[in-house]
C-alpha cells in the first residue's frame, strides 16, 4: 500500500514543526532577560559583574538573536540542554530528564492502559444501550471523573487506601519502597534503575520480584488518579462517536445483510468509531507524558511534572526550558504516531495528496 509513502511524507513534515517549537521556546527564554539565562551558572562566591561578562560571552548573548538561535540549536543537537539547579537535582538538564522522565513514562502508560481498557468497552456499551440505565451510569461516572479536582481525588485515595485511617494497602510516596534504594547494584544514588530506567521493567529484567511488586504498588494510586480523569474523556468520546457511527447507513446495511449484532458492532461500528477516539487518546497520552504536575506532586512521585514544579519554585530557567522542550517534542511525536495509526485504521487518509 502507499502507507509507507504516507509515513515518509508525514516524517518530513516533522522537521518544520520542530524548528517552530524550538524557536518559540527559545524566544520565550530570551524574553526573560540575560540574568534569567545565566542564573543557574552563577557562583555566589565570585562578584556578579565579573561572572556576568564571562557568561554573556560564553552564551553569545551579545550576538544578534538569529545567531543566538543557531548556537542554541547547535547545543540542543549536541545534547547540551543547559543546566538545572533545584533542591532535588543539580546538573545537566539531559541527566535530569534521564532520571525523571522514565518514571513519568511508566506512570503515564499504566494510567493510559487502565483508561483504555475500561473506557473503550464502557463507551461502546453506553452507545449500544443508549438512554438506558447503563448509559446513565457511565454518564455519571464520566461527569464525576471530569469535574472532580485531581488533587482532591488523589488525597481521598491516599487517605482511604494509603493510611491507617482507611485501609492501608498502598504506599503514599515515591516510585519504590525506600529500603530498595540502597544496596541494589542496578539502582543508583538517584533511585534510577538500569538499563531502561523504568523500575517495573528493570526489576523484571533482573528477576527481582519484591522490587517489581513494590514498584507496581507505588504506581497504582497515582495511575488510578490519572486514569479516572482520562477515562472519563475517552469514554464519552467513544460513546458519542459510536452513537454517531451506529446511525450511519453502512451499519444499517450491515444489519440488512443479516449479520449478527455483535459482529455488526465489532466489525462495522467499532473501527469507524475509533477514528476520532485515536486522536483524542493520542493527545491525552502525550499530555500524560508531559507530566501530571498535580498528581506527581501530591504523591511525591519523582516524575517530570514534579521536577518542573521544583524548577519553577527555584527560578531555574534551564529546568523550565528543558521541560518545555521535552513537552513539545512529546506532543510532536504523539501527533506523528496518531497520524500513522489514523492512516492504518482509515484507508481514506492514505490518499491525502
Amino acid at each position, binding site marked *: 500500500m502507499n502507507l509507507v509513502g504516507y509515513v515518509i511524507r508525514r516524517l518530513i513534515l516533522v522537521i518544520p514543526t520542530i524548528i517552530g517549537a524550538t524557536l518559540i521556546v527559545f524566544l520565550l527564554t530570551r524574553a526573560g532577560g540575560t540574568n534569567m539565562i545565566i542564573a543557574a551558572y552563577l557562583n555566589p562566591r565570585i562578584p556578579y559583574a565579573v561572572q556576568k561578562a564571562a557568561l554573556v560571552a560564553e552564551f553569545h548573548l551579545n550576538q544578534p538573536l538569529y545567531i543566538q538561535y543557531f548556537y542554541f540549536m547547535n547545543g540542543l543537537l549536541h545534547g547540551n540542554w543547559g543546566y538545572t539547579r533545584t533542591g532535588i537535582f543539580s546538573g545537566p538538564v539531559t541527566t535530569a530528564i534521564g532520571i525523571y522522565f522514565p518514571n513519568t513514562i511508566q506512570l503515564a502508560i499504566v494510567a493510559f492502559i487502565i483508561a483504555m481498557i475500561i473506557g473503550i468497552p464502557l463507551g461502546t456499551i453506553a452507545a449500544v444501550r443508549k438512554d438506558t440505565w447503563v448509559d446513565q451510569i457511565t454518564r455519571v461516572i464520566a461527569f464525576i471523573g471530569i469535574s472532580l479536582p485531581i488533587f482532591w481525588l488523589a488525597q481521598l485515595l491516599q487517605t482511604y487506601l494509603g493510611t491507617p485511617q482507611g485501609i492501608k494497602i498502598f504506599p503514599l510516596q515515591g516510585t519504590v519502597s525506600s529500603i530498595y534504594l540502597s544496596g541494589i547494584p542496578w539502582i543508583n544514588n538517584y533511585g534510577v534503575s538500569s538499563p531502561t530506567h523504568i523500575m517495573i521493567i528493570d526489576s523484571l529484567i533482573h528477576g527481582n520480584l519484591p522490587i517489581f511488586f513494590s514498584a507496581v504498588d507505588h504506581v497504582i494510586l497515582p495511575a488510578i488518579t490519572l486514569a479516572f480523569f482520562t477515562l472519563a474523556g475517552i469514554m464519552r468520546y467513544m460513546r458519542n462517536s459510536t452513537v454517531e457511527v451506529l446511525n450511519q447507513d*453502512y451499519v444499517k*446495511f450491515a*444489519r*440488512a*445483510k*443479516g449479520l449478527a449484532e455483535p459482529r455488526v458492532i465489532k*466489525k462495522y461500528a467499532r473501527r469507524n468509531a475509533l*477514528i476520532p477516539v485515536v486522536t483524542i487518546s493520542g493527545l491525552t497520552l502525550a499530555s500524560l507524558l508531559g507530566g501530571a504536575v498535580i498528581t506527581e506532586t501530591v504523591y511525591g512521585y519523582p516524575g517530570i511534572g514534579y521536577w518542573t514544579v521544583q524548577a519553577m519554585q527555584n527560578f531555574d530557567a534551564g529546568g523550565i526550558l528543558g521541560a518545555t522542550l521535552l513537552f513539545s517534542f512529546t506532543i510532536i511525536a504523539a501527533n506523528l504516531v496518531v497520524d500513522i495509526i489514523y492512516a492504518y485504521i482509515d484507508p481514506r487518509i492514505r490518499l491525502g495528496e
Partner: protein
Amino acid sequence: MSGMNTILKVEDLKTQFVSWNGLVKALDGISFEIRSGECLGLVGETGCGKSVTALSIMNLIPETSGAVTGGKITFEDYNLVETQMAACKVIQTKTKPRLKVRRSKIKENSRKMNKIRGGMLSMIFQEPMTTLNPVMTIGEQITDVLYAHQISELTQRIIARKSITEEELRVIYKHCVEGNDLKFLFDFVDLNNGLKGIVPQIEFIINRKDITNYRKKKMISDLFDKDRSVPTQINRLKVWKSIRVPRFLPPLLKQEAEKVAIELLSKVSIPEPTKVIIQYPHELSGGMRQRVVIAIAIACNPHLLIADEPTTALDVTTQAQILDIIKDLKNIHSMSILFITHDLGVISDISDKVAVMYAGNIVEMAYTENLFERPKHPYTQGLLKSIPVYEQKKTELAAIPGSVPNLVHPPEGCRFNPRCDHVMEICRTTKPVMTEVEENHSVACWLYSKKEEK
C-alpha cells in the same frame, strides 16, 4: 397472472415513531402484495413513508425511535412483524408517547430476522456513498454476507468442482503434515495415481530414526512443494468423501468466497473485479459503489429485493446502467422487486405494478400502463402533471400546491384533502378505503366510491 404465487403480503401495516412533538403516524395501515417475479413500484413525495415501508419489512426500524404497531407482513412462510411487535411497543402516557423495549425479544427477533435478511430478503439503500463501510475492503464486505448465509453452498461449491488447484493441495498437505495426520496423507495419495511416485519417498522419510518429527514434517512438505508433477486433475469427489471436510474448510472457504465475490462483481458488470475486490469504497465512483451494493444484495440469490431509491443519488447515464442491471435481475433471474422511488420516469421503465403513496397511505394501485394512461386519484394526476415535458416548455409546470402534512397531527379524513382540487365534505371527515374501480386498478378516493354508493 393468477398462477403466480404471492411472495410478500403486507396487510394493514402501521408504523409509528416517537418524537418530542408526539406520535408520528408514519404508516397508517398500508396493504399490498408482490407476486413472484413481479416488480412493484412504490412512488410518492419525500416523507410519505416509502422508506419506512421498506425498513418495516426489513425490521430495521431503530428500536430507540419507532416501532411497527399493527398489521401483518407475510414473506413466503414467515410472519415478519410478530416478534418485532412483541419486542417494541408504543405506549401512551399522559404527557407523551413512549417506547417500551424488551431486550430479550429484540434479541430473539434479530436472531430470527438474521436468517432471512440478506439471504432470502435483501435491500439496496439510497446512498451508495454511505452504504459501504469506509474502512473495509469491497471483498471483505461481500464475503461477510456469504459467510452469514451461504456456508453450505460454499462448501458444496468446493466439493463439486472438478479440478483441484495447487493452492488447495498445499492447504491440504499443510493440514495433514502439521496435524500429524499421515494416515490421511497416504489415503489421499492412494486415491491419486499421479502421486504414487512419492509414496516410497514419504515412507522412507517416516521410517528414518535419525531425525526428529519436526524435521520429517518439513521434509514431507518440501517434497510436495518441489514436486511440480502434482496433477491438478484429481477426482475431488472421491477425495472429499474420504476425508472429514470441515477440518480443511476455513482457508478453503475464504478462497471460495473470494471467487464467488469476483463472480458477483462481474455479474453487476464491474470491470476488473479482481482488482476491485482489494480496493476500499472511496476508491470507486458512485455508480461503481452502487453496483457493489447490488452485488452484496444479490449475493445470496434473494427471493425479494427491496430497492430504496437506488438511482436517486446517481447521474442519468449511471442511473440507466443501474436500472439495466436491476432489469436483468428481474428478467433473467426472475427476482421479485419492491422498487421505491419518487421518479415516475424510472417507475414507468422498470415496474409491472405501481402503488402511489401519500402521507402514510397507499392511495392508488394499478398496472403501470393503466396508471399512467388513466390515473384516478387527484394526487396521482397531480404527480403526472408535474413531470416536465419538452413540448410544453413554454407553459408553466404544474405543481401540487402545499406539501406533505405533518404526520403528528395528520388531517382528518382523507389525508390529501387540504391539497385536493376536488375536495368534498366527506373527504374532511371520513377516510376513504381502497376500492377496485377497474380490473386490477384500485384507488382510495371518495370521487369514485361515491358513485357506487349512490
